[in-house]
């Protein structure tokens, strides 16, 4: 895969990747874009290791993005909790910026592994096997993350529904 093919591949999948990262970053779109840029540069630098017969290009990009996000999280010192998402800087359309606050708040309270599994499964439509390849967890672990994530998300979004 050369530079041109890489760019055309990225053009097709960047939106989904950024949306996934934005949800993973609990609505911090600036951070999500930074992670996306870093992940895509990493992907570009390791194009030689990409094997199109073994893995789909999109799944490969998501794997790198997920790892980049986890590395960034590890390097970061947590200073604020998920409550800070309520004070996220809005863009030109305040309504749109606050539309997903409840969801971001709930996602922020999920452990990173559960969050990634839930987002890849429900938002991007990947199956268990693909999520296992992207996140580097076993299929059983992914099933467990999905089950727990689903339960937690339901409790967080609708506390009366137990």
């Amino acid at each position: 895969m050369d530079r041109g093919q890489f760019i055309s591949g990225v053009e097709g999948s960047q939106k989904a990747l950024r949306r996934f990262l934005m949800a993973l970053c609990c609505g911090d779109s600036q951070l999500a874009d930074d992670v996306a840029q870093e992940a895509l540069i990493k992907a570009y630098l390791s194009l030689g290791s990409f094997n199109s017969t073994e893995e789909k290009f999109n799944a490969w990009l998501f794997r790198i993005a997920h790892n980049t996000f986890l590395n960034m999280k590890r390097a970061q010192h947590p200073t604020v909790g998920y409550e800070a998402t309520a004070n996220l800087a809005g863009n030109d359309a305040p309504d749109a910026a606050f539309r997903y606050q409840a969801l971001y708040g709930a996602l922020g309270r999920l452990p990173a592994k559960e969050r990634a599994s839930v987002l890849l499964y429900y938002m991007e439509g990947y199956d268990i096997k693909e999520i296992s390849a992207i996140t580097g967890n076993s299929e059983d672990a992914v099933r467990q993350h999905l089950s727990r994530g689903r339960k937690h998300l339901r409790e967080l979004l609708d506390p009366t529904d137990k």
Partner: protein
Amino acid sequence: MEEDDKIKDLFSNFQPELSTSDGDFLAQLRRSMAAVELVRRQHLARRRDSRKALAVAALTGFAVGVIFTLLIPFVGDCISTFSISSVTVTIDYGILCRFMAATASCLTAINACRLALGKNFRR
């Protein structure tokens, strides 16, 4: 299953606004890729130059070493003629000459490497 559908519904409508447009994002990515390419090319050129400098140093060192080794018998004779007769310590001039040849080869090789690197860096 009902629980699953609820969450599916939740994400089916999830269309967050991204902070930058697709065009801006891709333009930034292209700029970063160009910068990375530039750094990578420079890094490769630097490595190539370093290898060249090492090769020059090795060849120069080897050549100087060969020349000095060939000159050892003559140099040994020259040194022995200048030796002070009152000194009673026996000096093995062969070893001394070899040591001098090795030192000269090393110094020449180091300087050749420095010169080659300096020339490459100026370029």
